[in-house]
């Protein structure tokens, strides 16, 4: 089954990921791609706390994720890959990888960003990054939880 959801969400692993998406997808592993979390055992422990023991959590740097993505894609279990920034996920879509869809789950307000959706704030440069991703054939939609309507990229950039 492999990775069922590639998600960009600056809260990383939280309720919407574990429960909102994890339950209906019957997720069995979550890959968190973040260089800072990868290098910090206390941070990893924090994110593990929110995940039931039957779900494996894999922590990877951006570089490790690029190397290990084929392995996760071959995994017979259902997985979610989550990262907090667009560039990290965009880097996974090259090199012949089969990432065909990217979910924008939550990018919140920071200086320089403007509101595009209730849960999506982007700088113009970030909007351009997403458009570039779509131009490479990746379907980019925003959707915080599975019961919400997926919002096409052109409707929020």
């Amino acid at each position: 089954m492999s990775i069922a959801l590639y998600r960009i969400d600056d809260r990383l692993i939280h309720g919407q990921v574990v429960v909102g998406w994890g339950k209906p997808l019957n997720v069995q592993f979550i890959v968190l791609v973040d260089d800072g979390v990868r290098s910090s055992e206390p941070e990893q422990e924090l994110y593990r706390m929110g995940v039931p023991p039957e779900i494996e959590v894999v922590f990877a740097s951006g570089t490790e994720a690029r190397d290990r993505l084929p392995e996760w894609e071959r995994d017979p279990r259902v997985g979610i890959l989550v990262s907090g920034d667009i560039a990290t996920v965009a880097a996974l879509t090259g090199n012949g990888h089969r990432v065909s869809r990217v979910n924008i789950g939550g990018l919140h307000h920071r200086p320089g960003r403007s509101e595009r959706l209730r849960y999506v704030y982007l700088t113009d440069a970030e909007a351009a990054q997403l458009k570039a991703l779509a131009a490479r054939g990746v379907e980019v939609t925003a959707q915080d939880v599975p019961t919400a309507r997926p919002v096409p990229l052109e409707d929020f950039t």
Partner: protein
Amino acid sequence: MSDPLRGVIVSHAAVAQALLSAVAAITGVSDALVPVSNDGCDSGALTDRLTRAIEGRPTVLFVDLPGGSCLTSSVRLARGRADVAVVTGVNLAMLLDFVFHRDLSPADAARRAAEAGSRAIRTPAA
């Protein structure tokens, strides 16, 4: 005498505000707790909200879930600090106990709150 402990309820959506309202309705105490929602926040913004809510006072952070953004921001804020403690699984029973026992250290108050909250979870025969 030092300031009594402050309680900050950290939750998804409007749970924190609702719990605060319930505590005030039951006890009449309205100055012991501060609600903080994670609505619209990444972890940095939520940490900023928590810092403002604490106002440098000794505090117990009452977090709704034992995982997720409310917990991660709370634990990061409390790391290495004796004046801030964290307890998860906030419920009304633990808050009602807390508002009348604010003369403890943050760590002791958090332990007491966890015990009070746990005692309230039962399956009474109908």
